[in-house]
């Protein structure tokens, strides 16, 4: 049994909160650059240039890329042969507390959804645990902004709706969102499972590098077709018109019930942030 102190988790989460908010992942930058090259509409190219300028400033000065430094979504893959000494949940929250203070990040969490008083330290984090074989702990911090989170939707389709129903729903969610979620967006789709599992898969899909397609050829083709349809809508960067409405469509699928076809669409803005470390 390998021992990992809760303190190590706090230190890692603290570091990842700051890094994720100030430095856009390589794969997202590459997709933005490639989209700029393939964008035929001059106004849209101009906006993509400002977006590139923005993340360069953030990179160079350790500044938050966006003022909405998000709710801290923390994914922990815990090896079965690991024993964590201390309170792992509290260790994550403490890491968020410290990271958001040290990094001059915005505190955007209210302690109750209806009474709405800011907790002042961006806690609690939204924590997702997964038990996996091995003796390591993988920690991913993904700050999630709510301009795009608010445009996400879930629907329980009928099995008879089939793949066409899934496609139409995904495209409709993106079209309804329009300019609101700060396009170009990344579209995370969860298909199958239960009501809650589909939403979880959609969020998890946003963690997959944008240059990595689904390993199943059927879903890979679906991702590519959906991206093409979405980029034919004409919404464009910031909604001012253009080709680049989405940078990628990432789908995660899962077995489901004979009577159901859950589909969840989790939208992320062009500031799709996540950083990972393995302990």
């Amino acid at each position: 049994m390998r021992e990992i102190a809760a303190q190590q988790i706090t230190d890692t989460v603290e570091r990842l909160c700051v890094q994720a908010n100030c430095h856009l992942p390589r794969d997202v930058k590459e997709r933005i650059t490639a989209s700029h090259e393939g964008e035929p509409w001059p106004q849209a190219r101009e906006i993509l240039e400002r977006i590139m300028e923005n993340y360069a400033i953030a990179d160079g000065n350790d500044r938050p890329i966006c003022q909405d430094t998000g709710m801290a979504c923390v994914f922990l893959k815990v090896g079965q042969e690991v024993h964590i000494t201390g309170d792992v949940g509290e260790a994550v929250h403490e890491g968020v507390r410290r990271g958001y203070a040290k990094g001059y990040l915005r505190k955007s969490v209210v302690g109750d959804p209806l009474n709405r008083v800011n907790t002042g330290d961006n806690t609690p984090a939204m924590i997702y645990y997964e038990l996996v074989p091995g003796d390591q702990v993988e920690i991913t911090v993904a700050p999630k902004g709510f301009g795009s989170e608010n445009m996400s939707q879930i629907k329980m389709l009928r099995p008879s709706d089939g793949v066409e129903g899934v496609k139409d729903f995904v495209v409709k969610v993106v079209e309804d969102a329009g300019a609101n979620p700060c396009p170009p967006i990344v579209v995370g789709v969860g298909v199958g499972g239960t009501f809650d599992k589909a939403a979880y898969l959609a969020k998890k899909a946003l963690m997959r590098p944008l240059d990595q397609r689904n390993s199943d050829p059927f879903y890979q083709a679906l991702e590519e077709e959906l991206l093409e349809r979405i980029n034919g809508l004409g919404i464009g960067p910031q909604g001012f018109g253009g080709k680049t409405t989405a940078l990628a469509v990432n789908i995660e699928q899962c077995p489901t019930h004979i009577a159901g076809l859950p589909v969840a669409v989790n939208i992320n803005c062009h500031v799709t942030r996540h950083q990972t470390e393995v302990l």
Partner: protein
Amino acid sequence: MAIRIQMPLTREQARTLKAGDSCLISGVIYTARDAAHKRLCALAAEGKELPLPIENATIYYVGPTPAKPGDAIGSAGPTTSYRMDAYSPTLIALGETGMIGKGKRGPEVVDAMKEHGAVYFGAIGGCGALLSQCIKKAEVIAYEDLGAEAIRRLEVEDFPVVVIIDSQGNNLYETGRAAYLKSQA
């Protein structure tokens, strides 16, 4: 090519701006998000004085990150505007002439803009680090308890925006998309 605008913005000036115009704003603007708008409208309903000079004012929908030592402000890009739709018609009737945000607006806001002469500007969402460089001074003037959502007085220089909806109700989200799609047909 961009139109230079010196704040405050009069109703007459607001009426000259057209959807799609690129503008550079200089001078004083104010920040407020939904929590602050709610309080402003509650004051207005009681006939009380607002904590900012609303006549000819432009309000920027932003909740900045905390300023690092030596900086005027942290990252400061626009938030989604529709959350202010319930409150904007009241403020426009009281004299607000400009709003800066991102995303769609409801018909009640557009009607108030047409009636009184106001304009809705868009700043690039997700570019908070870039936009903060145009903000030279920031000072909390009301509702400090709201933290990032407090009302701030900002002094800006060549702050880049685009007119999304003008005082005639023309909408860049509709015209820009249609023009692009036409070019591809």
